[in-house]
């Protein structure tokens, strides 16, 4: 008998002895009825994708992912479009959406629901700590066309938008994922800027998830110095799933863009330094007023002088903020330790900040 024949016979004989354990059949049957349930509630796509994404997200230790699937375990109360329109928080969110994406005004609210209760929010596998959940979700969809769809999950208590899912905004023939990395980033940046504000204060990282069946990109936006991503975005197929993970609160001092301009465009480095709450209170000025003053061609030093505050005082305040940030980042291991004392750092930074205090925006030549 040839070896080929022997192997063939052996395999078939062995196969006869292999019986599929009933436990497996049972499990698959359960999977199927889960699938049916989801299908009936017409949310198959969303949940399946999120499920897959979360499974993938667990692989990356730095990725903190807020937990939509845990929330799904609580019962959702459906809301009618009318209920959404009278609810203060939802109304405000919709207004925001309409002004960010005017085309959404014509969209139909295809689904809305609210969920309340306590969900388990484990920090690790043994943790059972719970979080209170009160979330309203609204799904809007364009009639006809490419079926553009946008889903908003809002914290019904604070009105914060916790997740945004944008689907089908690109033509079917050229789905989002087929674009180049730069184009994808631009799309995501645009979504964040419209829904939340400037992305310039964040450090950015993009990586491709290990998923051979489907290309999934993960984009993290991290506040400089923070450990956890602030926005975490998954891009797959023709969808952007944006989650405000919020390892830390949004920097309150990033209030105004364009305090300083260079070639007519905001200078974000200078902006981020001047958006300092302590500076505003020292000068007793609101960020918007400061912007107006600077636009007239005055320098920060000029403004301080007009209020009888010395340049040195201003310098101390902003230098202190910057050095504290630097030290904190070193502490957290975000930047390598410089092993310099606070005094040394303050001394180093002062000449750089002096430039900012004396900087004058170019005023219109006319």
């Amino acid at each position, binding site marked *: 008998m040839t070896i080929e024949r022997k192997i063939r016979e052996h*395999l078939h004989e062995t196969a006869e*002895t*292999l019986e599929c354990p009933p436990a*497996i059949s049972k499990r*698959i049957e359960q999977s*199927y009825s889960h699938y049916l349930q989801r299908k009936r509630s017409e949310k198959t796509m969303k949940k399946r994708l999120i499920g897959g994404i979360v499974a993938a997200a667990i692989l990356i230790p730095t990725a903190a992912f807020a937990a939509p699937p845990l929330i799904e375990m609580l019962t959702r109360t459906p809301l009618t479009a009318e209920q959404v329109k009278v609810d203060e928080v939802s109304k405000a969110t919709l207004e925001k959406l309409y002004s960010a994406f005017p085309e959404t005004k014509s969209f139909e609210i295809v689904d809305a629901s609210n969920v309340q209760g306590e969900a388990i929010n484990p920090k690790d596998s043994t943790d059972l700590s719970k979080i209170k959940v009160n979330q309203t979700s609204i799904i809007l969809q364009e009639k006809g066309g490419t079926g553009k769809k946008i889903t908003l999950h809002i914290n019904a208590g604070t009105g914060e938008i916790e997740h945004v899912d944008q689907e089908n905004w690109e033509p079917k023939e050229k789905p989002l994922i087929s674009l180049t990395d730069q184009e994808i980033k631009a799309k995501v940046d645009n979504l964040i800027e419209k829904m939340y504000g400037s992305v310039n204060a964040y450090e950015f990282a993009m990586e491709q998830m290990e998923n*051979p*069946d489907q290309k999934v990109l993960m984009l993290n936006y991290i506040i400089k110095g923070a450990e956890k991503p602030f926005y975490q975005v998954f891009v797959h197929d023709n969808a952007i799933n944006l989650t405000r993970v919020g390892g830390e609160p949004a920097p309150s001092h990033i209030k105004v863009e364009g305090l300083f301009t260079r070639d007519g465009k905001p200078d974000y480095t200078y902006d981020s330094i001047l958006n300092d709450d302590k500076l505003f209170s020292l000068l007793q000025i609101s960020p918007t007023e400061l912007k107006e003053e600077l636009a007239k061609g005055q320098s920060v030093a000029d403004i301080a002088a007009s209020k009888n505050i010395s340049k040195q005082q201003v310098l101390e305040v902003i230098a202190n903020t910057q050095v504290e940030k630097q030290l904190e980042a070193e502490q957290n291991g975000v930047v390598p330790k410089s092993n310099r004392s606070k005094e040394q750092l303050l001394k180093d930074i002062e000449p750089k900040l002096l430039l900012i205090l004396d900087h004058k925006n170019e005023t219109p030549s006319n």
Partner: protein
Amino acid sequence: MQSEYMYQLLTEMKDGDQQAFQTLYDATYQDVYRTVSFLVDHQQDREDVMNEIYMQMWTSLANYDSNRPFHFWLHGLVIRQVQRFRVKSWRRFRIFERIRAFTREESHWDQPAVLMDGTNQMISQAIQKLTDKQRMVIILRFYHDYTLEEIATLLDIPLGTVKSRYHAGLQALRKKIWNLPPERMEKINDY
């Protein structure tokens, strides 16, 4: 079973027909389970892979090429899920289990000992010792009787690669079986 009928069942199943699911499951699970068992060694892993295969079945129906026989499509699903399972780094969660499994490496295939004579055990072990890639080709060739061309399509690799894996696999098996004691060799050769 006819491919067209199977396709119809699949569609009904996808639309939520429990009966269609049952029929389709009953018609396929033994074959799928056995194939998976040949390719994946540990019981818990087989269970996971099986579940993934069937979940894939009702979610990726759109990819079904009705020009190809149903079983070809089904085996494609099986292979992709087995490969995916191997690649996936969530296996790291199983490290503990794998260490445990290492200590009883010899008992992978759960065959009843009575049915197995020494030669058969030898072949089983030899097949298990093949690399995953070789094993995949050997199982498809000898258990499912696919041609090497079909295997190339299923695995989505060039024919040349299939051939080299096939020959390398066979050679490894031959070598193992050459090492049998002389009386066993006679038994193999006396047909």
